[in-house]
């Protein structure tokens, strides 16, 4: 089986090549066939592969395949080679499977677009790059995938490049993630300097011998890698690009900015778990970043009016949960939340995309409403997704994953009450805005008349995703309820098991609190946006609330902050130095010699007596020299 490993990324790549080179000459159906087909096939292969992997795991714990020798110079040896262990497997499955669904969805969604081929080409390239990222066996190759997805995200955010807003968003995304990447690559340099290798298994192996726990070096490395993760996964303080990234088409948001790319940070940290474990500080920072991010982003999500921005902020905050989990040492929980989140967030985006399409590109949720009747399928699937997001107990996948994180946020090795509190608050907020979303979009009176309804090609993927948003959770139950933990079982081949603190109240207490909190959240959302209590309405209008609302709405004014701190100074410096200061020096030299030229020309005045004087000056000079010497 493992000799077919290369097919998984190769097929999308092939698709990309065909579409980008010949796309202009192909019919739309053919393009769709290639674009979606390539991904579907690699999804099939992945499923076969994982089936094989699960029933008879390789004794090394990983499928590996060396494609070709990339470069080897002075001890730095890198191959273009793939390595799939159970961690990668989870990611591959999500990428290919959800990728396939989204591609199918896009066939209909993008049907009318001029650059049909370009869209699918970029999407395929993205899938390929993402697969390289998670299948890489050395960090250089991983960095290749890492930057590759960045490029594709840039291309797809700016897909409709005529509109200024879009390419600005694209540039913003690329640059901000690039900042993270730069930190990460410095981390790689340091790693190589310390360990002398970038081959991931070796790195993990040597790190334990080379570093003592909490050593400065390893902490530095971990933090630098974390910065990389922050950039890609839109965590504080590098989160500002993701909301703007919604300028891209909805499938893009679903695939790149919800399901897969933005979770690359999670993958990186999980992949480098040894490094992180060696440095408690880094772990704490990770946890704190996650916790703060989930709260901050959640607040912003609460007050957004653009449906996609709501989802974007919620994505940020959900990834915050993952970081929190990783940070406290609940590795499998973090990955599990990625697993479930991928399904329901992709679902939400696709559904939102369908809604937007139907309502003639209307993004503002307060101009929607009453769609419950008109588009039932969308409504139900969207509701399921939202429920999962709000972690509705027991019936949704979101519950199972998030509940774990909440419980570990305190109880796990790195856990802390404050983290738990923040997570809890986040859960409340999440529930609130999910409810708000459902109510405002689907209930109430209809404000915009819907156009033609989404075709079956679009709805079927939604249904599938909806099913998984419910079912995905069942493979990992809370221990105290039902002893099913297939997922963590599998993942813990790679990732260390979660260590628990002693002397905490029973898990069930936490679960109940969590459930109650999310229910309260749902209720408050209901009463705020559907209930008619005048008290709340006028409270919503009160100036303080409004100002807070604006503050949240602007994403805690991060954009303005960076604008003032970095962007403006940069622009200023570049503007004043447009015509290269250092050039002045050379111009000065030229001018001086021209000036001298004028001076000397004066001596050439044609007057013979002056020339005689010249001779006299000469002889006088010689005589003086004589007297001096």
């Amino acid at each position, binding site marked *: 089986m493992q000799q077919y490993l290369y097919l998984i990324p190769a097929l999308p790549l092939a698709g990309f090549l065909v579409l980008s080179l010949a796309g202009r000459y192909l019919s739309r159906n053919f393009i769709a066939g290639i674009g979606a087909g390539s991904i579907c096939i690699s999804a099939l292969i992945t499923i076969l592969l994982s089936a094989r992997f699960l029933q008879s795991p390789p004794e090394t714990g990983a499928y590996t395949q060396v494609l070709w020798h990339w470069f080897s110079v002075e001890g730095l040896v890198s191959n273009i080679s793939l390595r799939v262990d159970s961690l990668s497997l989870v990611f591959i499955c999500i990428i290919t499977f959800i990728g396939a669904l989204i591609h199918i969805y896009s066939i209909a969604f993008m049907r009318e677009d001029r650059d049909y081929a370009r869209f699918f080409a970029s999407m395929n390239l993205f899938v390929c790059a993402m697969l390289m990222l998670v299948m890489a066996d050395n960090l250089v190759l991983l960095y290749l995938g890492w930057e590759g997805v960045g490029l594709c995200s840039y291309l797809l955010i700016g897909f409709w490049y005529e509109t200024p807003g879009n390419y600005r968003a694209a540039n913003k995304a690329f640059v901000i993630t690039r900042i993270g990447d730069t930190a990460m690559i410095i981390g790689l340099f340091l790693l190589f300097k310390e360990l002398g290798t970038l081959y991931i298994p070796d790195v993990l192996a040597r790190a334990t011998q080379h570093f003592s726990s909490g050593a400065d070096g390893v902490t530095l490395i971990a933090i630098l890698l974390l910065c990389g993760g922050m950039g890609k996964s839109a965590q504080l303080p590098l989160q500002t690009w993701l909301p703007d990234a919604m300028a891209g088409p909805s499938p893009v948001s679903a695939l790149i900015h919800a399901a897969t790319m933005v979770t690359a940070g999670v993958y990186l940290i999980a992949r480098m778990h040894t490094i992180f474990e060696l440095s408690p500080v880094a772990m704490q920072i990770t946890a704190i970043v996650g916790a703060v991010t989930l709260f901050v982003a959640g607040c912003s999500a609460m007050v957004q009016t653009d449906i996609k921005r709501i989802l974007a902020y919620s994505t940020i905050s959900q990834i915050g949960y993952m970081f929190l989990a990783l940070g406290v040492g609940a590795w499998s929980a973090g990955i599990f939340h990625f697993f479930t989140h991928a399904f329901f967030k992709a679902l939400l985006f696709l559904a939102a995309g369908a809604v937007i399409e139907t309502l003639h590109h209307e993004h503002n949720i307060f101009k929607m409403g009453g769609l419950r009747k008109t588009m039932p399928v969308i409504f139900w699937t969207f509701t399921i997704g939202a429920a999962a997001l709000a972690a509705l107990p027991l019936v949704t996948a979101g519950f199972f994953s998030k509940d774990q994180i909440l419980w570990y946020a305190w109880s796990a090795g790195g856990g802390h009450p404050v983290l738990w509190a923040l997570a809890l608050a986040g859960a409340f907020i999440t529930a609130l805005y999910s409810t708000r979303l459902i109510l405002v979009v689907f209930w109430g009176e209809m404000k915009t008349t819907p156009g033609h309804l989404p075709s079956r090609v679009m709805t079927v993927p939604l249904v599938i995703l909806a099913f998984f948003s419910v079912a995905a959770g069942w493979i990992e139950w809370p221990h105290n309820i039902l002893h099913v933990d297939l997922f963590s079982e599998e993942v813990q081949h790679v990732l260390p098991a979660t260590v628990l603190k002693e002397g905490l109240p029973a898990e069930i207490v936490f679960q109940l609190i969590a459930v109650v909190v999310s229910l309260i959240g749902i209720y408050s959302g209901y009463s705020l946006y559907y209930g008619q209590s005048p008290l709340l309405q006028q409270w919503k209008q009160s100036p303080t609330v409004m100002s807070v609302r604006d503050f949240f709405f602007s994403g805690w004014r991060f954009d303005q902050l960076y604008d003032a701190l970095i962007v403006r100074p940069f622009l200023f410096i570049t503007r004043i130095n447009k015509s290269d200061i250092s050039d002045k020096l050379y111009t000065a030299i030229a001018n001086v010699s021209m000036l001298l030229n004028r001076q000397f020309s*004066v001596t050439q*005045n044609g007057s013979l007596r002056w020339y005689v004087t010249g001779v006299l000056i000469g002889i006088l000079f010689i005589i003086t020299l004589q007297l001096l010497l």
Partner: protein
Amino acid sequence: MAPIHAHTVLVVAAILFVLGLAGVLTRKNILFMLLSVEIMLNSAGLAFVAAGARWQQPDGQIMYLFILAMAAAEVSVALALVVQIHHQRKSLDIDQLKELKD
């Protein structure tokens, strides 16, 4: 005895030389400039004679003859030019000759 002589003569020659130089510098009329140059040449000749006298050699006087000859040749050419200049410019003012300059 002789060296002192020689040197006194040399001083005279030097004075003549400087006089000539001054003349070249100050006179505006070409003819006078030429005269001054002649004075300078002759002062040099005088110096030669003195030097010859000092070393009891004829070379000094020989040199003086050469100088005379050369001066003659030079002056002849010079006068021809002066004639031309006067012909063209109707004046011998050296400050009129400023056609050639930057």
